């Protein structure tokens, strides 16, 4: 089991944002976390990536408890992330963005002598190749199209050979066609390299097409978990989240 979460809780000023969520993700598996706005998805996510410390509960990555560690430590233990709104270094080229992750992985950030320009680009290029961005390696990230930025983020997230990928609304802000392409790419990489993927998502087409399992939250608590077909048929999930299906084409 790559990731095992047991009964985590978090409250803010008396408001219980997450009240007892447990989940697990295996290598090569895609688990989707869905639910209405304010259900606690983001809070859950931020506890997993280290931005928040759970009040209670365990978060176990490959046998080690990571609850409460800062994000950079969690990254070094093999967790890659992509953000809801892409976060890249806008003043650097696509290649340099990936190289930064590699330099950080090699503990070389305090090198003040060797120009980055003379680094061997082979590994970074290989990563960009994997996400189909090699052709744009020299362009500054500040001018890329949104869908391409998402791919760069994926390449950065893969730079330290992660065991787990956390993707917060990976297709938010993308056109439907790009969504499908990005998730197919992600699913392929995850299955081939044995990476566990946990993602939140509002696009039900993406969720039902790519998730192996789905966990539905409402008001900080899990209300359903299972394979897509099971979850889709669940009357409670329909009531609090999915609705009639008129707006997502999945009934």
């Amino acid at each position, binding site marked *: 089991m790559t990731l095992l979460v047991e009964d985590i809780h978090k409250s803010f000023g008396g408001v219980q944002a997450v009240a007892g969520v447990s989940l697990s993700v295996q290598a090569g598996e895609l688990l989707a976390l869905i639910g209405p706005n304010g259900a606690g998805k983001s809070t859950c996510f931020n506890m997993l990536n280290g931005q928040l410390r759970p009040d209670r509960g365990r978060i176990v990555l490959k046998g080690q408890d990571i609850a409460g560690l800062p994000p950079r430590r969690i990254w070094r233990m093999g967790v890659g992330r992509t953000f809801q709104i892409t976060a890249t270094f806008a003043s650097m080229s696509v290649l340099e963005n990936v190289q930064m992750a590699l330099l950080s992985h090699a503990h070389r950030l305090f*090198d003040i002598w060797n120009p980055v320009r003379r680094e061997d680009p082979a590994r970074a290029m290989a990563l960009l190749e994997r996400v189909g961005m090699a052709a744009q390696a020299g362009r500054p990230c500040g001018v890329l199209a949104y869908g391409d930025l998402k791919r760069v983020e994926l390449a950065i997230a893969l730079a330290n050979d992660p065991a787990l990928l956390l993707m917060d609304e990976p297709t938010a802000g993308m056109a439907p066609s790009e969504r499908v392409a990005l998730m197919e790419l992600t699913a392929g990489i995850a299955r081939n390299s044995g990476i566990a993927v946990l993602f939140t998502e509002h696009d039900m087409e993406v969720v039902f097409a790519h998730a192996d399992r789905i966990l539905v939250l409402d008001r900080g608590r899990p209300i359903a978990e299972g394979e897509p077909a099971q979850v889709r048929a669940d009357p409670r999930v329909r009531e609090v989240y999915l609705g009639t299906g008129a707006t997502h084409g999945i009934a």
Partner: protein
Amino acid sequence: MFENLLVQGLSGLASASSLFLVASGLTVIFGVTRIVNFAHGSLYMMGAYLSWTLVTALPRGHLGFWGGVLVAALIVGVIGVLIEVLLLRRIYKAPELFQLLGTFGVVLIVQDVALMIWGPQDLLGPRAPGLRGAVEILGVRFPLYELFLIAVGPVVLGLLWLLFHRTRWGTTVRAATADREMVGALGVNQRMLFTTVFFLGSVLAGLGGALQLPRESVNLQMDLAIIAEAFVVVVIGGLGSLPGAFLAALLLGQLQAFGILIFPKITLVLAFLVMAVVLVVRPHGLLGRPPASAHAAHVVEPPYPPATPLVRYLGFAALALAVLVPPFMGEFALIVFTEIAIMVLFAASLHFIMGPGGMASFGHAAYFGLGAYGAALLAKHFAAPMELGLFAAPLMAGFAGVVFGWFCVRLSGVYAAMLTLAFAQIAWSTAFQWVEVTGGDNGILGVWPSAWAQPKLVYYYLALVLCVGVTLLLRRAIFAPFGYALRAGRDSPLRAEAIGMDGFRIRWVAFIFAAIAAGVAGGLFAYAKGSVFPTYMAIPRSVDALLMVLLGGVQTVSGPIVGALAYTWIHEQLMRSFDLWRLFLGSVIVALVLFFPQGLVGAAQRLTERRK
């Protein structure tokens, strides 16, 4: 005993009220326009001067006095509107530091204008009619006017609160504080809104100045004295928070009042010390909130291209000139050249944290000055030779960088800039007030180079080698993984942390590097001048460094070098040619902010790009 404490406490309350009047205007203006208005102190000074003129010209009595005070405040409001319409309105989209500098330009202009109109002597105003006497409190006489002032603060706070929470104008202003563009899209003319807010803030500053008339003499130092304190109050309270400003004014008023009883020497440092402590505990002030980053204008910084062949040739040519020409120059020119070399390093050191690091420092002179003092103190107390002194300079500055930097790099934006300013003021006042060790205002004299370096030409080459060497080292670091990591933290802290970077440590180390480099510059400066004074660490020198960096262009690698050359030259020319050099320098700054927001190198880059 108790009576004395009570009187002291009441005096503290009266000072707090005055301070609050000025600070409230500053914080209201900041809240809406996001401009840190350095010229707010100048508006306060104008209020005092104008009320002096009106009150002395008008017939004596209630109407003459109070009428004069109110009319003075209103005139200041109009002056504020003029500043807003002519200057600030054009730079609302410029980076914070540019706005700060633009308003500093206004400070310089107002200083010389006031000098021309009212002359250099202190002016004494009449006392307030009806409030001339004193009352007896527990057997101690206490001036009535002070009691009146104590009441003014809470009354103004209450009126402002009603204005902002019970009128539609106030609600709109609060909405604009969060998101001006959206307010515009809802049909509100935000230009008018900003102008009215600026009017209100300026009137408050003018009123604060005018009400000082019966308390103290009116002079040309009022502006910078009050602005430093008002900044402290606003920052402690939390930028944009009125109740915060009130609380901070009370706190500071009391601390000053009692501090003077217990430890008179600490008064200059006290305000800044309190600010440093508050910011460490609460990074956004007592009642401030973190800025809503959700819709802060997102600035994408340009990439740093490696030097083009042209830039490289220009660099080599400049260096060749710097090496080959001086043997044929006179003493005075050598002194100027030495100073320019030192300023290039000073500017480059500030640029290192400002450009790639994205951290604004308003107190970089501290490290320059501490470098100079490091060398001079060794020379004075241990008769150490220059070689040792030049080694001690970066050590001392670097040590200060370690300590101060640890606090400063935790904050961002205006708060970080203010904290750097606070530490610089602490360093400055220590040098100023610890007379036994530092010689206070008289400085330390007789800091001369070793015999071999005494000839001006030899010392010039020494300075050149050290300055160019360290500057190139900083440049090398910018293009190495460390410089990239620094930029990474600036571009996206979230992403940097998510790929294992410790942003705090990276910024801290960069801060220390910058301090060490500034220390080298300061040490060289001390031996070049043969003396060291507290002014080496004062606000104007920090502003010099900022001007050099901004003049050249923050987001260019060669900017600080060009900026230092240009600025030192302009400054030299102005000081030599004009009595009213402040007026000219201020105008140059305002022009720079208005017409060259990317700096000289940035403008040159745009030109060459357009030609392609």
